[in-house]
């Protein structure tokens, strides 16, 4: 069996049975990355020596009978996670030389369970983008069609799993940044409920929306990854102190008797016919699996893109104030005093998309405009959340498309930022409302591009959502197809 065909569960069994060592597995992983990454550009940093050393230790752990959930298994993380003594660029020139002095909590949790962190994955600069074209490390190519984008901002995290470079990754999702690339790359990506996973040590973009999420090749591996990273963390005061279920435990509970809502605002005219067809077929599958399908309404959907971008940009402008050339990052000092140093450092270090968002966010928060823009958006956000809470009184889950079209071509949308923002319409509302949601494969376009299905779950009901995704995966074979890379 080839390395790229193994699941986490396969790897665990082989490691436990002694059929394979972690060193062999890690070597195979590094070779796979070497063989494919000149085509894909999914990695910003590969930690070859560190991961082989960690693999040797893992083999000793396994021999001693200490098997964690991920002991000896190579994984990779978006370059937004602080990773001790490893470069963390966040896809930006301004952090080009930044080496993390500590581990993010999610990274520490991966290590606690024995994972081998083989590298840091490409992303849109500061997680701002839907195509992974806004990276100082260059665009990522979609493994299904290398002329196309993998989606963003966690484009590297999704492409790496799709191409079998690693079996699972971590990304972050502020407005769809795990789910949309998972959809475009034909893998499983999950955005947990806001507060479910600690964000300590994750470079902040929009703090009221950001959430850490796993990407994997199938639902079971995704559930295992969520088991590893979920939970309260005193170091993140927005993480929520409530019990974490074992997401693997009742995965095969099925959907019989579950009520699944179809929000009518998500099935609009602009939807690509191939996407509509795939989603309609998925609805039929759920009906056959015993779920009750009902139409529901989320009346404020049409306002979510405007609401989201105002809030995200305002928060970004504040979060990104820290990149001033004082404590870290690349300083540019033309000798014009402190303010001149700030201006030159930031102007040289940030890319166009990041500057645009800082500018809009600063404007929305500036004196005289705050009430009209930021406060207004916060009020609309309440209406959007209320839509969801109301609908969840009637149904257990919502089913929707992930993106209005399959992956588009690299360069196709770069000159039209607003058009790019509008493509996030189906993923954004869940971040505003704070519910959980996930994307998994439900078909392919005629060109052979993957199409994802989105399930939206109630706050902190990731288990129920994973069960429904698992039932679909068992009933279909969409996730069996792999790209030729």
């Amino acid at each position, binding site marked *: 069996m080839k390395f790229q065909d193994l699941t986490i569960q396969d790897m665990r069994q082989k490691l436990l049975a002694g059929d394979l060592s972690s060193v062999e597995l890690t070597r195979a992983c590094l070779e796979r990355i070497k063989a494919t990454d000149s085509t894909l550009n999914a990695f910003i940093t590969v930690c070859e020596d560190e991961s082989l050393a960690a693999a040797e230790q893992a083999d000793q752990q396994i021999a001693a009978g200490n098997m964690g959930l991920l002991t000896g298994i190579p994984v990779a993380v978006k370059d937004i996670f602080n990773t001790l003594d490893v470069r963390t660029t966040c896809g930006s020139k301004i952090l080009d030389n930044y080496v993390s002095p500590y581990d993010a909590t999610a990274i520490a949790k991966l290590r606690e369970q024995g994972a081998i962190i083989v590298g840091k994955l490409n992303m849109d600069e500061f997680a701002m983008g839907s195509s992974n074209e806004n990276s100082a490390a260059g665009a990522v190519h979609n493994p299904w069609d290398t002329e196309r984008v993998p989606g963003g901002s966690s484009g590297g995290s999704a492409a790496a799993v799709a191409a079998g470079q690693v079996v699972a990754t971590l990304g972050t999702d502020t407005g769809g940044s795990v789910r949309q690339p998972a959809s475009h790359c034909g893998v499983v990506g999950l955005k947990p409920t806001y507060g479910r996973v600690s964000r300590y040590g994750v470079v902040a973009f929009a703090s009221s929306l950001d959430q850490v999420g796993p990407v994997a090749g199938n639902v079971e591996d995704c559930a295992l990854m969520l088991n590893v990273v979920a939970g309260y963390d005193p170091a993140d005061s927005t993480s929520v102190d409530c019990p974490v279920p074992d997401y693997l435990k009742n995965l095969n509970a099925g959907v019989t008797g579950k009520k699944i809502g179809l929000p009518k605002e998500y099935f609009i005219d602009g939807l690509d016919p191939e996407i509509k067809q795939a989603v309609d077929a998925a609805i039929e599958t759920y009906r056959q699996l015993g779920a009750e399908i009902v139409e529901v309404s989320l009346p404020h959907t049409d*306002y979510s893109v405007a609401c989201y971008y105002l809030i995200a940009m305002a928060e970004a402008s504040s979060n990104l104030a820290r990149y001033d050339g004082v404590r870290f990052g690349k300083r540019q000092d033309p000798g014009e005093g402190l303010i001149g140093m700030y201006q030159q450092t930031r102007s040289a270090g940030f890319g166009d998309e990041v500057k645009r968002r800082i*500018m809009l966010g600063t404007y929305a928060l500036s004196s005289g405009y705050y009430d009209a823009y930021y406060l207004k958006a916060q009020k609309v956000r309440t209406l959007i959340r209320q839509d969801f809470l109301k609908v969840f009184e009637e149904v257990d889950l919502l089913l929707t498309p992930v993106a209005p079209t399959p992956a588009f071509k690299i360069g196709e949308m770069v000159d039209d930022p607003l058009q790019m923002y509008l493509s996030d319409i189906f993923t954004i509302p869940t971040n505003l409302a704070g519910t959980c949601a996930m994307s998994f494969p439900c078909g392919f376009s005629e060109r052979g591009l993957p199409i994802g299905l989105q399930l939206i779950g109630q706050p902190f009901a990731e288990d129920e959502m994973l069960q429904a995704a698992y039932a679909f995966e068992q009933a279909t074979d969409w996730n069996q197809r792999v790209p030729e890379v």
Partner: protein
Amino acid sequence: MKITEKDVKHVARLARLHLDAADLKVMTSQMDAMLGYVDKLNELDTDGVEPMAHAVPMSNAFRDDEVGASIGIERALQNAPESDESCFRVPKVIE
């Protein structure tokens, strides 16, 4: 026009960004398009609606004020563009 080049220049100063003449032109037109779009929020009557700061109905996560583990001065300074003993160095502020 929702926003003029003069406004954009002012915002750039607030954001500590330098924009040259060409950048300023592009930025003004892109910000104008975006602000035109977000205007649609004004179609909604939000009188009496509470603003929402984040997604979990939770505020003020207090903890005891106790000294905990920290990364230490050397680690904290390892990425500094310029440092001096235990301090970050910046260009001179006061003449």
